[in-house]
């Protein structure tokens, strides 16, 4: 375990060296959240209605800011670039001869990056919370808050596994950038970070509810706002676990298959 702790430490140091770069990335995301929040403020004031698709203004603002914090943790990650490049450029050969499990190594690096952007995001969002504190809601209960954390952690695993699966396609395809871009585009909308999934037409809702991407923002924020019953929560938890298991299984299968076809030159 000690060696993985060192991987975490080294990755942390590596990323912290480019902290200004990360701050800029996060600020871009925070600005997006801020604009979305202001858009909703304007919409509610123009519509002169207290309820839009089941959301009051404080609920919508809480949803937007909560989604912003979660997205600074999840959606700003490197999204498989390291894995693709390691396979494509042959750095995987170095990982294979070391006493390390490459998949765990990539997972730790991914989590490390997620944590850095999350800490920066929380710090910046705290300033915004001061300005918007009148319209923001606390979680419905302490247990709901703990469930939000649990679901965000599961979302982080699903996020990593999804990009991992697309990235290790590099064993067969020379570039996986296109596939990962496609996933990222779907994620931008289907995660519910821009607007809650329930705002879309029933056709899109059916598609988005089927995908595991809803666990990124929509599901945690429904739990936070108390829109989920215990039954919904249980079903969502089982579904998230099944997705993790399924993606893990598929990833394991692809990894085994891919390693057999992997060749490297220049060792």
């Amino acid at each position, binding site marked *: 375990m000690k060696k993985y702790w060192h991987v975490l430490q080294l990755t942390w140091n590596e990323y912290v060296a*480019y902290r200004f770069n990360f701050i800029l990335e996060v600020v871009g995301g925070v600005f997006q959240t801020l*604009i979305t929040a*202001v858009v909703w403020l304007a919409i509610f004031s123009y519509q002169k209605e207290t309820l839009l698709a089941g959301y009051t203004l404080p609920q919508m603002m809480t949803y937007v800011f909560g989604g912003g914090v979660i997205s600074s943790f999840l959606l700003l990650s490197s999204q498989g670039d390291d894995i693709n490049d390691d396979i494509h450029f042959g750095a995987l050969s170095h990982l294979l001869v070391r006493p390390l499990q490459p998949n765990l190594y990539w997972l730790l690096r991914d989590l490390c990056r997620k944590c850095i952007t999350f800490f920066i995001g929380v710090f910046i969002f705290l300033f915004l919370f001061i300005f918007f504190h009148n319209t923001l809601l606390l979680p419905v209960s302490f247990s709901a808050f703990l469930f939000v954390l649990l679901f965000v952690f599961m979302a982080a695993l699903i996020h990593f596994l999804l990009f991992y699966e697309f990235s290790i396609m590099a064993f067969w395809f020379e570039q996986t*950038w296109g596939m990962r871009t496609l996933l990222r585009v*779907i994620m931008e909308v289907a995660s519910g970070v821009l607007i809650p999934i329930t705002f*879309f037409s029933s056709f899109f809702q059916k598609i988005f509810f089927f995908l595991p991407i809803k666990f990124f923002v929509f599901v945690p924020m429904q739990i936070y706002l108390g829109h989920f019953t215990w039954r919904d929560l249980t079903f969502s938890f089982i579904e998230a676990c099944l997705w993790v298991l399924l993606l893990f299984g598929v990833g394991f299968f692809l990894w085994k298959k891919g390693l057999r076809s992997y060749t490297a030159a220049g060792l």
Partner: protein
Amino acid sequence: MLRYLKIFFVLLRTGFARNTAYPGTFFIAIIAKMLRSSLVVVLFLAFFQHMRTFAGWSFPEILFLSATYLSLEFFGLATFHRNLSYYFPRSLKSGEFDFRLTKPVSVLFITSFEHVDWYDISSVLPIVVMWVMLFVRYDFSIVWWQVLEYVMFLGIGLSLFFSLLLFLTSTAFWTINTSGVGRFFEGFLRQTKYPMSIFSGPVGVFVRFIIPLAAFATLPSEIFFGRASFFYMFYVALFALCANVAALWFWRFALKRYSSASS
């Protein structure tokens, strides 16, 4: 000028060869980019499921604004955006930038247009469909001088986009890694799909005057619909000109102090 046009066409050709070297990923990326353009419309469709107007903008007007935003984004992304945001800092880090300095061509030109992005050029279809649909389906009254002003201010918006990005990315001469600049700028740019007239108070002042993001899509659309004030049009044109001069000056200033990062 003609020489640079010729070079641009050569860059177009080499860009095509580079992008299609991996045909599988090329076609999937095109699908992704087409989907991204379409999702802007899906987003507004979702809003209009629950409201009749979007802060005073009707659905056809919002569609027009979206088409304007996507067109501007298309021109920027296909040409200079990635070159300045990602490839330029990377070339500084790897030392490739030094070779550009030896070429008998403007360093800024080659830095801004070296990689013409065929992923974006090839995914223009949804934008074209949107424009065709807009004018076939909705009865917009077209006044020729408004169209002329619209095109002119779309160009001004694009030049402002270039200037702001050039200003930010020139900091790469001093910093080690500036990919964050690209992401930071994208975060700002993507918000211009909303009508900026929706914002009031300090945010409104910021997006209309301090960093006039309204110049990117909102102002040209307002001009087309005959809603733009002459004062604001003048202000944006002047701002874009000043931003252009300042960005070019800053680029030259930074370039003079460049002492090769990797040698």
